[in-house]
């Protein structure tokens, strides 16, 4: 019996005319299967069929055959499929059911009616596998994006599913988190589970994957041999160009939420014409640093200097920005507010949004939404650009367009600071790399020395 057997599967979302899945023929027996494809190609839709959220939760029109672990997806409710199918969504911020880490991991196994003694073992095991055993007593609200992503995975692993379905699970993970996830996937596969992983940063998974599927136009096709394409096309960070002036500077800044400092006595600066990549483990303080530079978070001590000019800030959650009826009007709104006379069309084309300019940004896929949010903040020629995990959900083409946009900011005399775990992006765009470790900045490629 195949784990997944789709035959001529097609699906259309409610109130949409185009098919999101258009004749998917797919059989998966076992192993680790990588699913890639451009933003909006139907990956998330296909994954949602695996645990019955489509059609049971989303409605719409479904046709063809869809069997998972022998269950007819159309006839089996999601809560029954969930006994065997573990699902991790793209947005880890929105998946926590309970306010504390340990309790949230237990939610799924509570629903399965597992005895408490077994539950304790499973929760501890899942937290350890995901490398977040030290966070077990923490409040979910205090976790970083990457830590939340690991939490969501732990909650699913504790249920010991026969099929693991993961939607962009690496998007916010630091290298340690990525390694922990890969180890967990290996262990699950060795134990007999099947894993289906949709991921744009496919170099992370390809080396371990048994199969590589490519989604395009609502159909899935076998891609090249995964192990052959597993190497990361990386290059060392670009040599730092000479900075022509100071864009921002932190003088002995300590910052954090409440009275607890996350950043300690930081001495750091960014020059005009630079693209600074900000790296570091989940929870190391990257978002706090970006918010401090932006002026959104007053420092607990020390001083922040910024060159006059507009600051563009992209938060981790792109939905925080989007409130207009169309992508075009989002961009135009920023242009109006900043008094810019530029048009919206060029920027949208540069970011590959021309085709969706007239669509509601909240109807777009995560990657497209991320690009729409980017266009909304980059409009109006900002002099300082602060981006928090900008490649989340982005496909290769979108990442290329981001690189071009950042290069334009630098060439135009601006400065960009990009907090990211995406090593490909760092290799493609960064003129400097600053790593945060325990709230202290360590320059990896020196131009301005930064440390305590």
């Amino acid at each position, binding site marked *: 019996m195949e784990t997944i057997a789709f035959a001529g599967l097609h699906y259309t979302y409610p109130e949409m005319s185009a098919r999101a899945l258009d004749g998917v023929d797919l059989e998966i027996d076992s192993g680790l299967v990588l699913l890639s494809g451009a933003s909006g190609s139907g990956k998330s839709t296909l994954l949602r069929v695996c*645990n019955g*959220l489509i059609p*049971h*939760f989303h409605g719409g029109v479904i046709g063809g055959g869809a069997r998972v672990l022998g269950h007819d997806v159309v006839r089996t409710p*999601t*809560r*029954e499929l*969930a*006994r065997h199918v*573990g*699902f991790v*969504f793209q*947005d880890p*911020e*929105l*998946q*926590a*059911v*309970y*306010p*504390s880490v*340990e*309790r949230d991991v*237990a*939610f*799924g*196994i*509570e*629903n*399965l*009616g597992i*005895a*408490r003694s077994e*539950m*304790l073992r499973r*929760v501890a095991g899942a937290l350890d596998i995901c490398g977040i055993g030290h966070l077990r007593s923490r409040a979910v*609200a205090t976790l970083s994006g990457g830590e939340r992503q690991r939490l969501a995975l732990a*909650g*699913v692993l504790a*249920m010991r599913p026969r099929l693991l379905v993961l939607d962009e699970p690496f998007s916010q993970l630091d290298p340690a988190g990525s390694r922990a996830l890969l180890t967990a996937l290996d262990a699950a596969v060795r134990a007999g589970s099947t894993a289906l992983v949709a991921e744009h940063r496919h170099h992370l998974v390809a080396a371990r994957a048994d199969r590589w599927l490519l989604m395009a136009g609502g159909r899935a096709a076998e891609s090249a041999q995964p192990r052959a394409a597993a190497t990361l096309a990386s290059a060392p960070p670009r040599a730092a160009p000479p900075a022509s002036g100071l864009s921002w500077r932190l003088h002995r800044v300590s910052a954090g939420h409440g009275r607890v400092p996350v950043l300690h006595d930081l001495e750091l600066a960014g020059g005009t014409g630079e693209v600074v990549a900000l790296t570091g483990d989940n929870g190391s303080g990257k978002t706090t640093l970006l*918010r401090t530079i*932006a002026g*959104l978070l007053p420092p607990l001590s020390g001083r922040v200097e910024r060159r006059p000019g*507009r600051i*563009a*800030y992209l*938060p981790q*959650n792109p*939905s*925080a*920005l*989007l*409130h207009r009826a169309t992508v075009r009007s989002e961009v135009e*709104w*920023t242009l109006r*507010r*900043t008094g810019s006379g530029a048009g919206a069309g060029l920027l949208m084309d540069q970011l590959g949004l021309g085709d969706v300019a007239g669509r509601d940004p*909240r109807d777009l896929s995560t990657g497209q939404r991320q690009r729409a949010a980017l266009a909304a*903040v980059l409009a*109006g020629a900002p002099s300082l650009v602060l981006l928090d995990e900008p490649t989340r959900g982005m496909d290769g083409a979108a990442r290329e367009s981001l690189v071009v946009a950042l290069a334009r900011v630098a060439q135009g005399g601006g400065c960009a600071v990009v907090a990211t775990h995406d090593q490909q992006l760092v290799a493609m765009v960064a003129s400097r790399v600053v790593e945060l470790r325990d709230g202290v900045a360590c320059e990896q490629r020196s131009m301005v020395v930064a440390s305590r």
Partner: protein
Amino acid sequence: MSTRALAAWSASGLVIALSTSNPIYRAVVLLCALNLLLARGRRGSGPRLLLAGIGIAALVATLVTLLLSHTGAHVLLRLPGAIPAIGGPLTLEALVFGLSTGLGIAAAMLAVAPLTLVSQPDELVDALPPALARTGAAIGAALNLIPGTVRSAAEIRDAQRMRGWRARRVVDWPAVAVPVVLTAIEGSLTLAEAMESRAYGAAVRTHFGVEAWTGFDTLVSATALLAAAAFLGLTLSGAAPGWFPFPGLTAPAVSVPAVLCCALLVLPSLRMRP
């Protein structure tokens, strides 16, 4: 203290506060509840906001009674009769009755407050009987959305500010309000998806959290429930009469056994320290 024992204590306080119109008994319940909150309540803005809300609710109740009840012998002020509803004499009796009503509302709210301020939502869910476990899980998840929405509102305001948004006029607010509402709706839907995907409703739920039930919990629960039952008995038998200040002001009658019943609610705070 166990959440179940706390729930029994809250229910008893609520019954006493709502079953009498006598401000003396209400005041004793209010003091006991306030004492418990101070002994065990969390620090931070939550308790302060709650106390402010209770104060406002009590004030509104007092004002509404004063303005709408034109009965009583001691007239403090006369509003023009042409003013609908509130026009006419404002009396001392109405003011005192309003204060008593506000006191009752404050006592009832404070009796329930420890359940939300002392206990976490998941502790409340665990305290529910098995028959309500599924409903409780849904309520717990919904409660978890509230702080998330508050945080998201702050993030959205910050993000829009960086795009040039300023709150100068009413028409500026949709730039923040719309994404807050849409994000909250999306958050609810994603949470529902996440719950469904984690087998919510697939079987009879078991609980990860198990509260210890101590002898003190038994003592608090039994004392509180007995106190409420005895108070109800005294009230229904006429031994602990209510109070009504109309047509003329009189001092409320006090039944010592009834005051003792109310005072028994102080028991949990005797053992708790901040």
